[in-house]
């Protein structure tokens, strides 16, 4: 195979959607759960990202991180540092972070006005 790793085959152009200033909200329940998780320590941040995959094409990715190499917007929501990767800002603008307290399917939930559909488990969206 001629893999063309020289200049003979240039990378395909990726259409990068315009970055938007993310507006993000958090329910009282989610704030309480984060308060439990963080305690008084505010050195860490909640990273709210999007990965490709899942039943609907995109999956939410929530992590508690100290820092990240991913270029992010940094928000202060109810006293918590929240990081949103710039590359997925267009998918996350307007979201609400909620916490659902139930035995099955409980945990942090994202309510996303940009999602045209989501899968049964709620972890992925399109």
């Amino acid at each position: 195979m001629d893999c063309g790793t020289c200049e003979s085959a240039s990378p395909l152009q990726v259409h990068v959607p315009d970055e938007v200033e993310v507006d993000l909200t958090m329910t009282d329940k989610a704030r309480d759960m984060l308060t439990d998780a963080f305690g008084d320590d505010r050195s860490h941040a909640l990273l709210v990202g999007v990965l490709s995959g899942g039943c609907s094409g995109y999956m939410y990715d929530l992590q508690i991180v100290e820092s990240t190499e991913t270029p992010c917007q940094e928000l202060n929501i109810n006293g918590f540092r929240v990081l949103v990767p710039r590359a997925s800002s267009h998918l996350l603008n307007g979201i609400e972070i909620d916490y659902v307290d139930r035995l099955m399917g409980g945990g942090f939930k994202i309510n996303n006005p940009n999602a045209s559909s989501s899968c049964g488990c709620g972890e992925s969206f399109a």
Partner: protein
Amino acid sequence: MGLHHVDGYVLLLQGENILPFLDGLSSNLVNGPCTTVFTDRAAKIIDACDVLVIGENVALVGYGDEKDRLTRHLLDHLLGQNIQIRDISSLNKIYIGDGEEDYPPGATVHEGWFGTVCILGNSIDFEPTWTEEDWREHRIQNVIPFAKHEVTSRHHPFACGLAELVHSSKGCYLGQEVLTRMRSRGKFGHRLVVKENPVTGATTVGKAHSLSIERIQ
């Protein structure tokens, strides 16, 4: 034994975490060389591709007219991941056959689900040993669906004979909910069959037999 030249495309993916990226968008378990099917949310086929691992790079080999659609699909889901996609189709020729062939030096050979795939740079002279008709008869004999015939965007993988490329326990991917529901309920709607000629609405017509996708009664 033989090899047939097919019109196809080769996309070279370079970067990090390429296999997990492809795994999240296709129906088979992609953790090494394999053949997999990229589906949309309705589980309709975008394209079926062979996945070749070449050092740290990955090549996707497709056989239909869906290069642009698949490329756009992949690019739309990159989301800032460190993966670059190069279209190296024009630098190579793609051959597919039954694996009983002597391959010229410089050939990249992959045992795929559709057959043994051989990719040669344009500078390598090679005369295919199978005609289009040979390849067609081989496919009908072995009930192998293929791009432009059975593997099209009008069908889901189960309908066109690609059930073996739908992994049953790999977890979520685009179209997985629909395919899992079909499998668990045993309702596939259509199926690929081989029938003696004449066959009305055949997708691949052979000398004595043909392939056809028929509705399951």
